[in-house]
């Protein structure tokens, strides 16, 4: 052990954002021995990966890794979780930050046993954000079955309505607290890691791709929800207009990415995500025809390359190099025709399919909501790391678009950077 400079027990780290990157940073730092506050705006941890059906290339469920991470949190009293919370202000400098955190009310306290009676009692429905509005939930709800913390939530929009009262009366455990108020916590921490993640780029902004116009054009994230056993169709991929099982699907790559009009950069994961989703379709519909319209098929390394090779071997998957220029709909069948120029043969392709999936890109949340701290951003809203200055760091997709493996590597590294700030202050 090298004297006083080694990991001191004092000094806390704040991690903002409890998605897979934030979880990783928080847990890895806590297991070194540091106290970590993990702030998450949703009522549950897991962020975007909790909305995915499977990861590429192993086709394994995200909840597998999340469960281990939650267990590591459960076994580590050094990690303090604050859900439904957001950072309001940050003052100070590396080694010494004063942070105001707003903790929004869940209206359900620690006595909740997840019995579900409150949800049963509610009558009105609200759109499920977790499912991108593809299904409705009650005003008292559990975000999803493996939600952690395992505690129900009451949506603010039903407070003051009859449903709120119904929920309270249904609870045998006195867990519903309609009087719960937002409160502000003041934390003093030595380092902050911003792992505020990403949101799917708003596909409605992409004029020529018909999202929002034609019902059978969905985004890749919506596809994940359809394919998920806990999703709006219990894992069946059914197209929105008529709940029909699609026998043909077109994937439109770079929908809004690599495009000066929308997101100029490449969103890293969409090629692999579409290949993965092709397996979802194939698993459910052995004879479905799948068309993937791409500019480049970006398999970034050996494992993804291997996965791509297995997809390519499928005789009913057609890979066409050509950016989709426009879409149109047959008003009676609601089938969609995508138009693209095959860049290699030069011919114009008009492909009619029953379902279109737009591989929309990832936009950092800070692109639309700047964070209340002295941070530098790229023009697209990604946080730039200043390791010289230290103190605050960006992890995961808040820093750059990346897959889960790279995000977790990055997040592990940022845990170290945060610790260095504490050690060297």
């Amino acid at each position, binding site marked *: 052990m090298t004297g006083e400079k080694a990991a001191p027990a004092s000094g806390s780290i704040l991690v903002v954002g409890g998605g897979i990157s934030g979880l990783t940073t928080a847990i890895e730092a806590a297991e070194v021995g540091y106290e970590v506050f993990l702030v998450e705006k949703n009522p549950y941890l897991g962020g975007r990966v909790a909305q995915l059906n499977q990861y590429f290339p*192993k086709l394994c469920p995200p909840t597998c890794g999340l469960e281990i991470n939650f267990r590591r949190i459960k076994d580590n009293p050094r990690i303090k979780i604050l859900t439904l919370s957001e950072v309001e202000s940050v003052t100070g400098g590396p080694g010494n930050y004063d942070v105001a955190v707003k903790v929004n009310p869940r209206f359900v306290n620690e006595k909740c046993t997840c019995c579900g009676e409150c949800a049963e009692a509610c009558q009105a429905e609200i759109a499920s954000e977790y499912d991108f509005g593809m299904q409705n939930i009650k005003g008292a709800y559990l975000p999803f079955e493996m939600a952690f913390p395992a505690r129900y939530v009451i949506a603010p929009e039903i407070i003051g309505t009859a449903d709120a009262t119904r929920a309270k009366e249904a609870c045998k455990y006195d867990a519903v607290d309609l009087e719960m108020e937002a409160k502000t916590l003041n934390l003093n921490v030595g380092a902050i890691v911003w792992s505020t993640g990403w949101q799917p780029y708003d596909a409605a902004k992409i004029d020529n791709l018909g999202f929002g116009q034609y019902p059978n054009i969905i985004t890749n994230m919506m596809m994940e929800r359809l394919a998920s056993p806990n999703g709006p169709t219990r894992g069946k991929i059914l197209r929105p207009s008529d709940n029909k099982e699609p026998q043909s699907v077109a994937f439109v790559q770079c929908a809004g990415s690599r495009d000066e009009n929308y997101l100029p950069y490449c969103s890293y994961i969409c090629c692999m995500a579409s290949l993965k989703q092709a397996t979802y379709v194939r698993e459910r519909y052995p004879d479905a025809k799948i068309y993937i319209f791409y500019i480049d098929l970006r398999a970034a390394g050996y494992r993804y390359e291997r996965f791509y090779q297995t997809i390519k071997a499928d005789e009913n998957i057609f890979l066409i190099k050509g950016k989709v220029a426009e879409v149109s709909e047959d008003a009676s069948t609601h089938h969609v025709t995508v138009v693209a120029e095959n860049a290699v043969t030069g011919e114009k392709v008009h492909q009619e399919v029953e379902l279109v999936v737009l591989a929309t890109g990832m936009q950092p949340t800070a692109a639309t909501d700047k964070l209340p701290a002295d941070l530098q951003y790229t023009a697209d809203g990604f946080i730039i790391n200043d390791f010289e200055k230290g103190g605050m760091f960006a992890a995961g997709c808040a820093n750059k678009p990346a897959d889960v493996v790279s995000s977790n590597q990055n997040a592990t590294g940022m845990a170290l950077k945060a610790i260095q700030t504490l050690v060297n202050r």
Partner: protein
Amino acid sequence: MDKKYGVYICEGCGIGEALDIEKLGEVPKEEGFPVKTCPILCGKEGLALLQKEVADEGVNTLVIAACSRRVLYDVFRFDGCIVDRVNLREQVVWTHPRSTYPAPTEEQKDDETFIDHVQMMAEDYLKMGMARVEKVELPEPYKLETLNKKILVIGGGVSGISAAIDAAKTGYEVTLVEKEASLGGNAKKWRQQLPGTFPYEDLIPPAIESKINELENTANITVKTETVVARIAGEPGDFTVTLKKPGEKTEFDVPYPLPEEMKVDDKGKELDAEALHAKFMEYNKGKKDILSFDPNGEKFGAVILAAGWRPYQPKEGEFAHLGFGELPDVVTNHQFEEIAARGKITRPSDGKDARSVVFIQSPGQGDDKDFSYTGAVTSLVTLKQAKYVREDYADAKAFVFYQHMRTVGLTENFYKSIQQDPGIFLTKGEVSSVSKNGDGLIVEADNTLLGEKVQVKADMVVLATGMVPVTADDPVVNLAYRQGPGFRDNALFDEYADSNFICFPYETQRTGIYAAGAIRRSMTVEEAVEDAAGAALKAIQCLESVSRGVSVHPRSGDMTFPDFFFQRCTQCKRCTEECPFGAIDDDEKGTPKPNPARCRRCGTCMGCCPERIINFADYSIDSIGSMVKAVGVPSEDDYDEPPLRVLGLVCENDAYPALDIAAFNRLAYSADVRLIPVRCLGSVNVIWIKDALAQGMDGVFLLGCKHGDDYQCHFVKGSELADIRMKKIGDALSSLALEEERVAQFQVAIDEYDKLPQIIDDFVASIEEMGPNPFKGF
């Protein structure tokens, strides 16, 4: 520990409605365990009761019969106490509704022939919990006698240097060893480097010089060049490392395990332990055994493997259609970089200017694959090199034939900036041939974006070959472990020293050794520097965990460790061979030598030991065995048609949570089943199955994580080993005239909870078909 027991039964969440709580309370009373019930055990009064029991009554061994261990973990945590969570809610009440298994009516309550399946289940689980707490102890952490917190970094390239700086800046002493005479690795051979920060537009001078400078100015780093690792012996926190000069032969060079064919005599029979050891020493003549520690070895606590990559070497005749090997002006990207680093780019054949250079990303021949060992970085390097050509000669042209331009993420910006250069032509295309054309070359390509076949005259052609991890040639890390010097399953990863876990990219089968940089996967300098920081964190985390005497991922914080009762060991060496983490070595007699700091506490050793000499403080042959024996097995003495009893051994990583979620969704399954959570299917000892069958249970199933190439098993091998063990148990069953099919293993992913009732019920149905265990009632 002097145990003072207490059993606490919660009546909330439907438990009180479904069960006869008073009758349930008789069960602990009969065993002499004090019992209390409570309407809502997690409520204010319930908690106050528990706290009083612990604080005032001195209860230190609690059986809490309520909800799953996965919830209210903080509420039912009592430091210094043994706490067992009997899962009445998810495992009994929520999955076995009274609509299917009716409770007795008032009249039926006295009817001894009435079978209340749900009540019986609850009583069994309570008995099992009580049986378990009698057998377990609170763990004492394993503290190393000597703990060293120095970090060894193998490799002095970009990754190794970054890792060393990062670890030192966090307050740890580092020694960096590099096999060459100077630091810098491959990065020193470059003319320029890819941009590593926003806006990713322009090439930059290689950062390696400034990194080396930074290293030299960072305190607590010792650099040893012309040094390689001869062997690493010991365990995290206490590694004894022998360093040597490259090529030197020393008695502490790492020994290699015997090849399979040498482990048997000429009749094919396996040699005994002593004969094996003699052969091992003969095979490794001149080298000390793994258990002989180098008295001059240096002590380290953790290792960062950052030994990097070497260029792909095409085989004889490989890429002949592209002229490689025949035409001197057809070079690899690595060779091209070396030329470019020396000065203006000139042709190898005659030294003339290279003003027309064609870059080929894919070997073609009908496939759109790139060269092997490439990745996104290779696309970027080609663009960089195309820029060199343009920098050297104002009228030079570069042509890039690619199948996919893999400039992912923000590096797309660099691609865009290259696309602005009017002298660089980029097209998708399949290069069919490169041939001599006078003094120059002609490149022919098809299926390009230009419509027809294309012919390009070139002064030079560059093949974008890959970065081979050095672990493809040599284990590098040279662990003096009985299982061998390298990482075990690198073949799964094309010889990269990688992890199979998407969520846990640094977790490999060797605790305390963390890989970073291009040895792990092909990557840019920017990615490598980031990766190095992560590996440094993991190395530091391992040191801190070992100093606290606890395990690392996935059983982070676990203070138990395997305890061996050597007096009954028969030196079969199964534990040594099966441990996924190589945590157990053995001596010349074959007696295991455990290394607890290498251990991940999965229990695979406990599961494979035929003599059952390995146990953990809170998880042992006896603790689980007692739970099995506590299950009541009704026979024809009790009922005309006694219900079946099927044991389910359930992995707590994926299967147990899946069962909880099935319960949350009120999915019901057979009430004949009794479940016991285990740390990993690898830890399942066949004695538990024999115990179950011997006392009349009718079948046993194992429920755990998926194995295979895309394994989800959190301990890598556990699920697979259990599968092999279960297949072998078939023989033992046949000898007892029991059907093999009475024992089965099912693989389930954590999100497949909806399949579980079917899996369980189908198994129970198959047992029903076979009929009850003929040994029942004896």
